[in-house]
């Protein structure tokens, strides 16, 4: 039932959505792995989980580097024996108009947001196949539908949706599900830092007239990661208060 005793890795869980998600998985009885590039952030979240009585391992690693990904997974397997749940959450943005996006802006966003999930999935899937159980949850973004100044970011997040769908088909026979969550507006430090008039405009265009909380995303992850979610695969659900309905690509 649920995620009890499952081993769950959440990338980019040193802060924001990832931190909340990894904490929620731990609260629900999963053995969790906190990953981020920043060791101090990793340590902080691991400490929080442990002091709340949860089981956690922290590993600082850059998920866009193959050797670091392999090392990360090795450490998890050594400690917990396997990886049951992989949440590809780590992501970065470098928003700029098309003509101002440098090659480096393009590469780094694609490397972290899309190549990272590829490398991680490829590394953990053999363990999942062996145990005939796996849950991969990819955190995309509503921006994959297209958004000005996000040519790199939107492409990476759109790629993540396609990647999820392909993997779902390839792995369906191995009892491994692959699903995708596309968050809309969520209250994170990034949102809080916006000027008030921009926040107001954003809020106005929300069908619910509310903004989501990191917990809303964590709740979606728990749904897909659940032992019992075994007939749900290849799906993309927006957690966005209904804003996705205003776009043509939202079913």
């Amino acid at each position, binding site marked *: 039932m649920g995620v009890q005793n499952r081993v769950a890795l959440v990338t980019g869980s040193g802060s924001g959505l990832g931190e909340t998600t990894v904490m929620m998985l731990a609260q629900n009885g999963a053995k969790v792995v906190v990953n981020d590039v920043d060791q101090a952030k990793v340590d902080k979240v691991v400490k929080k989980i442990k002091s709340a009585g949860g089981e956690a391992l922290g590993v600082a690693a850059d998920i866009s580097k193959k050797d670091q990904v392999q090392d990360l997974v090795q450490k998890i397997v050594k400690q917990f024996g396997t990886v049951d749940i992989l949440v590809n959450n780590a992501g970065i943005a470098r928003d700029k108009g098309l003509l101002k996006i440098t090659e480096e802006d393009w590469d780094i966003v694609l490397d972290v947001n899309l190549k990272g999930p590829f490398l991680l999935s490829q590394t953990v899937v053999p363990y999942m196949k062996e145990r005939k159980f796996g849950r991969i949850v990819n955190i995309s973004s509503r921006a994959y539908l297209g958004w000005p100044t996000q040519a790199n970011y939107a492409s990476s997040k759109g790629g993540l949706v396609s990647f999820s769908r392909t993997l779902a088909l390839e792995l369906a026979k191995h009892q491994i599900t692959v699903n995708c969550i596309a968050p809309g507006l969520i209250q994170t430090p990034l949102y809080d830092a916006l000027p008030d008039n921009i926040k107001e405009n954003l809020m106005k265009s929300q*069908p619910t007239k509310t903004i989501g909380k990191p917990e809303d995303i964590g709740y979606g992850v728990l749904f897909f990661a659940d032992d019992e979610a075994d007939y749900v695969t290849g*799906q993309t*659900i927006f957690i966005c208060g209904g804003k996705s309905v205003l776009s043509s690509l939202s*079913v």
Partner: protein
Amino acid sequence: MQIKGRVALITGSASGMGRGTAEIMAQHGVKTVINDVNQGMVDEVVKGIKEAGGEVMGVVADITKKAEVEAMFKQVVNTYGRIDILVNNAGIFRDKAFLKMTEEDWDKVLEVDLKGVFLCSQEAVKYMREQGYGRIVNISSRAWLGGPGQANYSAAKAGVVALTRTLALELGKRGITVNCIPPGLIETPMWHSLPEEGKERLLKAQPMGRIGSPRDIARTVMFFASDEAGYINGQTLYVCGGKSLFANIG
């Protein structure tokens, strides 16, 4: 998951997926309303849930008749004081090749599968608006993407998706969310009634090589219907073992 104590009406819940959903919701402490057109079947499900310790009432009503729908919701609110969750599950099909489909086949399927959803939602929303809280979960079908022999059924179920999206936009600011589940192949009495070779052919086309159970639908209904799902709105989530990926609207 916070859902205990909520009041949920599930249409067409005397058998199949609706019944499975109602029973599992009742196990989670939801006050459950069983609705169907057949009194005997409603009574049986109510009895089973009561014996298992659940809180439940049964209402026989034809959801295509406005007066019966109004009376049904009145009865629910009189008994439980509110209506938090509406699961529009009732559905019928009359599969036929396009040229063999009679006007009656068309009307009947559209009335139950689409107009019934409209009537029940309209009535439920009257109460949900006052509460400032509501969860509507519509059961569409993967067949809305198109299926030979299902001109009427697929049109009705596509209508359910569109209705979901429109209501989500209209009601979002009132604390009411509206979401949609298109099930794929699920083990129901209908599945068991298929000939063996038909079943085999269908199974072969499943990415997972198997079908789902009513439980798969029930837990997804509860996901959308829980208190925590307040920011999930207007969504269509297939529970189909990945089969939806072969269609271009996925």
